[in-house]
């Protein structure tokens, strides 16, 4: 990853000078911006967020990690996929303030010692993108998807749910089903499936 400092940004989110806290009979609620501590790509950092700030907006706006993309902002396109404690999630549909202490990996954190992650390398070799807007989400999703398959998780394409799924059963049909939460408007799907299958075998 880059050496960019991802510490507390100087700029605070909109509305951070508004209401503070509300200690009513229904608990102590924080309304204003406050710091949330996250471990992003292996580094401890702090982001100033309001309760309503999504993890996506915190990553892009507060921590300046713009590799994660905002597509639909409604949990429909998958462009904002990141890993939260090792699992793929949609960062546009979670609140940053609920992720205190969590471990987050974004596309910026996949490379290792200047070497591309095998999934990143497979996407370049297989020409698995055109405009590239969905690519970071596709890659983050695919990396975690292979771990899910290795853990024996079935999918809607799995024939026999009663048997453990074997990671080596990742057929193109399984990959398409497991990756259906990542849309590509350039429709590079055949090459994406090829890249994911190649990376899964490596």
């Amino acid at each position: 990853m880059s050496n960019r400092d991802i510490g507390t940004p100087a700029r605070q989110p909109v509305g951070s000078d508004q209401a503070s806290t509300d200690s009513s009979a229904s608990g102590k609620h924080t309304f204003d911006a406050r710091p949330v501590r996250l471990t992003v790509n292996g580094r401890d950092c702090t982001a100033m967020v309001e309760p309503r700030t999504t993890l996506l907006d915190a990553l892009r706006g507060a921590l300046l990690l713009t590799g994660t993309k905002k597509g639909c902002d409604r949990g429909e396109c998958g462009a904002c996929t990141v890993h939260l404690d090792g699992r793929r999630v949609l960062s546009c549909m979670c609140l940053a303030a609920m992720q205190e202490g969590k471990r987050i990996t974004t596309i910026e954190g996949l490379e290792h010692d200047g070497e591309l992650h095998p999934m990143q390398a497979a996407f370049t070799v297989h020409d698995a993108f055109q405009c590239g807007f969905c690519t970071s989400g596709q890659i983050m999703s695919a990396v975690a998807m292979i771990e899910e398959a290795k853990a024996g998780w079935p999918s809607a394409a799995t024939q026999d749910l009663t048997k453990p799924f074997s990671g080596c059963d990742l057929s193109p049909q399984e990959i398409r089903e497991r990756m259906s939460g990542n849309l590509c408007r350039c429709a590079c799907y055949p090459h994406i499936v090829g890249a994911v299958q190649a990376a899964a075998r490596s």
Partner: protein
Amino acid sequence: MHLFGLSHAPDIGSAIAWHARDPGLAFIAGGTDLIGLIKDRAALPKRLVDINGLSELTPIKPLAGGGVRIGALARMSDVAANPEVRERFPVIAEGLLFAASGQLRNMASIAGNILQRTRCAYFRDQDDPPCNKRRPGSGCSALHGINRNHGIFGWTDSCVATHPSDVAVALAAMDAFVLVRGGSGERSIPFAEFHRLPGNTPERDNVLERGELIIAIEVPGRPEGRASHYLKVRDRQSYEFALVSAAAAVATDGGRIRSARLALGGVAHKPWRLSAAEEALAGIALNDTDKLRAAIALSFADAHPLTHNAFKIELARRVALRALQTAGERA
């Protein structure tokens, strides 16, 4: 999104007490439906209480007698991957795996799944067209609008929306129970009674009261559980809500149905059990398609299509039949 407050529930008792006292407060778990509703201004809570720290609500446990108890906060992907769920109730695992996407299944809780609100496009519309769910008393835009995705059973002029959950259809077929805790203790709600029909108060999707929290879903052992199947028909092959779906389960005797369970999704304000068909199916051979079809048809006497969804009646009959026969192949 509008400005709202956030706190974290330290224990179940506090969460329930806060919720009971504060009509502006909403629980948040996975958030995959609630955050979308807030973005679409279909929910405007003043305060959210994060309940993800209530770790006693997470485990999935096998029950004596062949059942399972699924903690309210168990994630869809964990429930779908659970060995006991897959073996004892394939219909539940399939209901989960055919829903949403890998990312959303990692986030969404089982209790949040059955609490998700309708996908009716008028209800979700930020421009606030008449919708009795969104603004009680404002009318129903879907009744004479675009209603291809809407109900054929149990609707009223107040609301023609359908419930979007897949796994709820499987849980209804299995006669699961929703365990709920409130200020005066716990109650166990039979699944068929959990979701409501719209009547004149479609703003209420279910019978949960303020100050109540779902603790778990309990699925008792059922002789039909192992030979079960969830079949979902939709406009896209994956990552789409159902046009029509069916959860089917059978116990058999030498190729004949001893007992059957059948419920439909995508057709009503709640999972729609085909009770008349279930009764008539007993004794019919699984390969006697004509008799199976006739038995299923008994449950369609009260089906009423809207302007654009008459196709759902024939589609639902066929989906129910195929789900039943596929379940039978597992017996």
